[in-house]
């Protein structure tokens, strides 16, 4: 009886958690399979569920959707570029700081961490101004470089931590065999670091795909903006087609969610646990 009561108490906590978590998600799904009338009626389930909204989105048959495929391509292009460049920069930096023990490595690490802890919305203002001076505004590269700047500090930190754990004997053995630092990097370091590299590449990719603020500040042409900014444009008028907005939003949210769950083991914790554990 006591055991039963304890289980009942757990379920009593579980039900509100489930409702709280899923309601906004369910609402997106509900709208994307509803006609406009049904969506605006406040119904909890549409009378006639339909996939028409997705057809409209894929065929770009609405004013706000004229650049749908182009914008999803921009999102993908930017995310992949940020992932690749961040991975390159962070791997080199982590290798130099952790294995080659270059002078000033500690200072660079601190500079990176400082960038990581400054709220991104604060850095956005000077970044916007600087991109203007560089003449990069409205070029996809401005967003790529800004996101690389934001993603690198965490990437370097995680890779440095992982790389500190590799045994030193490997480096020594390679040196005795006459390996140059570059050979050490390519033949010993990279293969051993592969799991962390995959995780960090994914992290940078998702960060860029999900970003809204920097994208909306730095890019404004219909054909350079990623889908995130395209979604924001839906709210420009009062009678927005919310059922189409939600269908597009669902398409936009699915790939990063799938990737997140596929790499879930690597995605949580990391720096934060390192930073906050006493």
């Amino acid at each position: 009886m006591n055991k039963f009561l304890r289980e009942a108490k757990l379920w009593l906590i579980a039900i509100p958690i489930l409702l709280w978590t899923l309601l906004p998600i369910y609402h997106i799904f509900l709208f994307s399979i509803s006609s406009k009338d049904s969506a605006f009626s406040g119904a909890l389930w549409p009378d006639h569920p339909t996939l028409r909204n997705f057809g409209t989105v894929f065929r770009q048959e609405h004013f706000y959707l004229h650049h749908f495929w182009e914008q999803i391509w921009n999102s993908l292009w930017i995310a992949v570029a940020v992932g690749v460049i961040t991975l390159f920069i962070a791997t080199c930096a982590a290798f130099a700081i952790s294995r080659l023990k270059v002078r000033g490595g500690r200072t660079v690490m601190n500079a990176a961490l400082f960038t990581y802890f400054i709220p991104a919305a604060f850095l956005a203002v000077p970044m916007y101004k600087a991109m203007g001076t560089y003449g990069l505004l409205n070029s996809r590269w401005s967003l790529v470089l800004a996101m690389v700047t934001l993603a690198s500090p965490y990437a370097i930190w995680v890779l440095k931590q992982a790389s500190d754990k590799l045994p030193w004997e490997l480096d020594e053995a390679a040196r005795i065999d006459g390996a140059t630092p570059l050979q050490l990097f390519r033949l010993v370091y990279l293969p051993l670091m592969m799991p962390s590299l995959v995780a960090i590449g994914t992290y940078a990719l998702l960060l860029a795909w999900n970003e809204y603020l920097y994208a909306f500040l730095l890019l404004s042409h219909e054909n350079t903006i990623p889908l995130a900014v395209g979604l924001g444009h839906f709210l420009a008028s009062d009678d927005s087609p919310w059922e189409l907005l939600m269908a597009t939003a669902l398409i936009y949210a699915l790939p990063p969610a799938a990737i997140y769950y596929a790499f879930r083991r690597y995605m949580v914790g990391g720096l934060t646990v390192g930073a906050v554990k006493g």
Partner: protein
Amino acid sequence: MIAPYVLVFLVFVVYPVTYGLWLARHPQSYVTLFDDPVFFRTVVNTIVFLMVAVNVKFALALFLSGFFVHDRAWIRWLSVIFIIPWAVPAIPTIFSIRFMLNPEWGIINSVWFRLTALDGPNWLNDPTLGLTMAMVVHIWKALPFWTLILIAGRLAIPRELYEASSVDGATSWQKFKYVTWPSIRTLYLSSTILSMIWTLGDFNSVYLLTGGGPADLTHVLATLGIRYIRLDQVDQAMATIVVALPFVLPLVYFMMKRLSANE
């Protein structure tokens, strides 16, 4: 090999920040800023947002982490679902909540009407309710992450401590007070500091929900800077950030100290 990152840091952090501070050098910018009634309101909103949202979020995360450490298969499944708000991008879900709160067509007021036969409140057209809802959105999004951090903290506590206190006949409250809390206090406090920094930079929860409205009454510092940029007043935007720095930098300094202490 460290050069690529140093280059990125110089070109996209050092130069912009220096240039930004240089733009913010005119005392006139600060006079204009302090004269702007929106600015004063924004500072109050930001303080309320930080105090209320961060503390409520952590109280909930502390409670929920205690729930999720129960060893049941169905609770592990629930934790997979619970992480969704953190796993998906911000815009879709915030827009979804925005329409749910629509006074005429939103699902919340429609259910409200069915239950009470009264019209529900105009959620986002009232500054107090609007800011409250922005805090709810923020908590909805960030709660899973901090709950996971606190779960990790709780799981690191040796089981023997709990077994020993059970033998001594401790109640669950006593177990929390004398075993759990002393073990995770440091984690809890530094998580709160880090979360304050990140919450200060939370642009999406406010901007995508209320847009700072009605009548610019729900801005926080993160959205106000961007508002000045949209109005083409970049000096003003920089001044806003400079004003916030005395509050942000000590927190950042604390976190960096903490990290180097752990190495």
